């Protein structure tokens, strides 16, 4: 393929790709997301391909469709007919069209969603850039390069009020502006695809299933900020994710969408991939940047933002996978459209990974402001085994739990933070009434004592002491003064730690002491 050297060249290529495709031709999309892949969707692909070879039907291997619980998942277009729990022996029926499928918009899991980011997954083979181009891919990049100035792009992202999806909810536009304006001869952009928290799998679903969407956002951001070098930091333990990212980079470069003189605009941008080798703290932004430099991923203690002084002390703008994936639609459809979705302070849609005691585990995407009840009951199908719901936990080991009575709270950065259960990256753990909330705090602390760097005292020692107290409480050995000890440790950890991991490490415990204190008191002998 020849490198594209103009906006018109891109549109010609797109028209050519689209013209070769017959929208009426049947296509069978098999999900190979984390859940379906582990449930042997590869065997289903083989069976379908063997069957389809006899007819003129395409079989596409795609990223995560969303409803992991019912995998392996298959969607047949046109008509978007869903087949769940597909086994190789179901292939003849699906290919012949005799097996009964359910229209996607009639599946309760899907029909309450707004799938702006993940909705393309069943239509895209992540290893083929042509699939992304056929759906309008890289048109936003072309618009940003040729019809807008970098400042106009920045202005749109600010006006859209896109807030970071990685945990803090910090406005992306303000971060971009800081990195853009910080004095330096060089600046960098980074995709944080670390996603190390247990129960969070939406970034993997999006990045593995539609890598170009993230990459397009990154290139647009780099141009707006004035960066010519970008980094993707991701997990080393997901072979498909790595393969799809590396393939996407190579294909984008081959088409002139990455590298020197992108689309003939004169803008140069290159991307390197770096890997976490298995520790949660390396997802913390300053630790991640230390790691990219080749140093141990210890958070940097300096009082200066990484957007001013990050990798090699140059301005470094880091956003997570989902944040970058939002950029292209803001550019193509406009900030006003984007800001019309969501609540006053939280715009757009949010990916949520549902897990725990829920009927439908999976990745859902809903407009900000959607009541948690809709997510858990309508989309998630309620609590498994028809047990009563006890609590919802957001944000994993740096998040918090809220009790069932708060289930009408909207999915909103500020509303949930005020309740002590910030959205975090969007991992939502559903817990039934058999869950022990003392054990849950113990669990998260045990995770973090293994996953922190161990540099600063209040994190290393504070988490360990909290873990010891909670372990003895869950073993029926609670002592007088334990709750006061926990409260002091949690407070000091929150105030004194070096990095965001440490500062929020006691948040799950604090949320549980706030909403479930009676369970803690019950573990202390009478009079405690």
């Amino acid at each position, binding site marked *: 393929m020849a490198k594209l050297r103009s906006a018109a060249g891109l549109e010609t290529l797109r028209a050519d790709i689209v013209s070769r495709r017959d929208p009426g031709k049947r296509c069978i999309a098999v999900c190979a997301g*984390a*859940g379906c*892949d*582990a*449930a042997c969707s590869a065997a289903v692909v083989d069976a379908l391909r063997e069957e389809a070879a006899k007819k003129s039907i395409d079989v596409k291997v795609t990223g995560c469709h969303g409803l*992991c*619980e019912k*995998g392996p998942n298959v969607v047949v277009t046109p008509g978007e007919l869903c087949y769940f729990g597909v086994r190789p022996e179901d292939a003849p029926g699906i290919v012949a069209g005799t097996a009964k499928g359910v229209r996607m918009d009639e599946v309760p899991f899907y029909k309450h969603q707004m799938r702006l980011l993940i909705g393309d997954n069943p239509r895209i083979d992540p290893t083929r850039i042509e699939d992304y181009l056929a759906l309008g891919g890289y048109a936003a990049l072309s618009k940003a390069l040729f019809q807008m100035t970098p400042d106009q792009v920045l202005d749109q992202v600010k006006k859209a009020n896109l807030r970071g999806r990685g945990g803090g909810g910090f406005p992306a536009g303000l971060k971009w502006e800081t990195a853009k304006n910080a004095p330096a001869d060089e600046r960098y952009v980074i995709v944080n695809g670390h996603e*190390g*928290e*247990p*129960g*969070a*799998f939406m970034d*993997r*679903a999006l990045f593995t299933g539609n890598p170009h969407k993230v990459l397009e956002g990154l290139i647009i951001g780099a141009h707006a900020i004035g960066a010519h070098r970008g980094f993707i930091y991701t997990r*080393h*333990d*997901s072979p498909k994710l790595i393969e799809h990212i590396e393939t996407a980079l190579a294909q984008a470069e081959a088409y002139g969408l990455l590298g020197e003189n992108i689309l003939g605009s004169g803008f140069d941008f290159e991307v390197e991939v770096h*890997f*976490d*080798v*298995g*520790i*949660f703290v390396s997802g913390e932004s300053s630790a991640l940047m230390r*790691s990219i*430099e*080749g140093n*141990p*991923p210890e958070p940097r203690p300096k009082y200066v933002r990484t957007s001013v002084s990050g990798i090699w002390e140059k301005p470094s703008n880091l956003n997570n996978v989902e944040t970058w994936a939002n950029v292209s639609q803001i550019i193509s459809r406009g900030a006003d459209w984007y800001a019309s979705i969501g609540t006053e302070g939280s715009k757009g849609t949010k990916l949520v*990974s549902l*897990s*725990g*005691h829920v009927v439908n*585990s*999976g990745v859902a995407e809903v407009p900000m402001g959607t009541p948690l009840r809709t997510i858990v009951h309508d989309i998630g199908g309620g609590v498994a085994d028809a047990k009563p719901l006890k609590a919802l*936990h957001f944000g*994993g080991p740096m998040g918090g739990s809220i009790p069932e009575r708060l289930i009408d709270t909207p999915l909103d950065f500020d509303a949930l933070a005020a309740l002590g259960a910030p959205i975090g990256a969007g*991992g939502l*753990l559903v*817990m039934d009434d058999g*869950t022990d909330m003392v054990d*849950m705090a113990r*669990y*998260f602390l045990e*995770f973090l004592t*293994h996953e922190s*760097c161990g540099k600063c005292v209040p994190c290393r020692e504070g988490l360990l002491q909290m873990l010891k107290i909670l372990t003895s409480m869950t073993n029926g050995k609670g002592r007088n003064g334990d709750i006061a000890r926990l409260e002091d440790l949690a407070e000091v950890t929150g105030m004194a730690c070096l990095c965001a991991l440490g500062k929020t490490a006691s948040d799950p415990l604090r949320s549980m002491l706030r909403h479930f204190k009676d369970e803690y008191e019950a573990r202390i002998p009478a009079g405690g």
Partner: protein
Amino acid sequence: MCSDKIDQILARHRGKPGALIRVLIEIQHEKRWLPKEALAKVAQALEVPLSRVTQIATFYKTFSLKPKGRHEVHVCTGSSCHVRGAARLLAEVQRMTGLKPGETDSESRFSLETGSCLGSCSLGPEIIVDGTHHARMTPAKVEGVLKRYS
């Protein structure tokens, strides 16, 4: 044994301290652990102090300073598997193998690991042996799964 492979890896990165993590990943993939002699060679070739090499090699859980068994048994202890009973599952795997997480048996049959969520929460609780997921496990099913690996 295999030391020429390690030499080949080192030759590609000689004198580049920034390549430390990449080199360790490559050696780990090649040998499935990081022998002590290899760490000393890495320090010399990349011109990095041995103490730094040791720090990195012990910092990340992926790196192993001990040889691994023929089969790697991974019990997922992510939050979803946890609420779905991973602790009971782990206890049964430990009882069956006689191993604690991080250990390898004397016949090098199994290495036991716990840890990070692989994102297949819908299948939990699960154990993953040599990359194959065994979904919706119960303690009673452990024996049947482990028997398949010798």
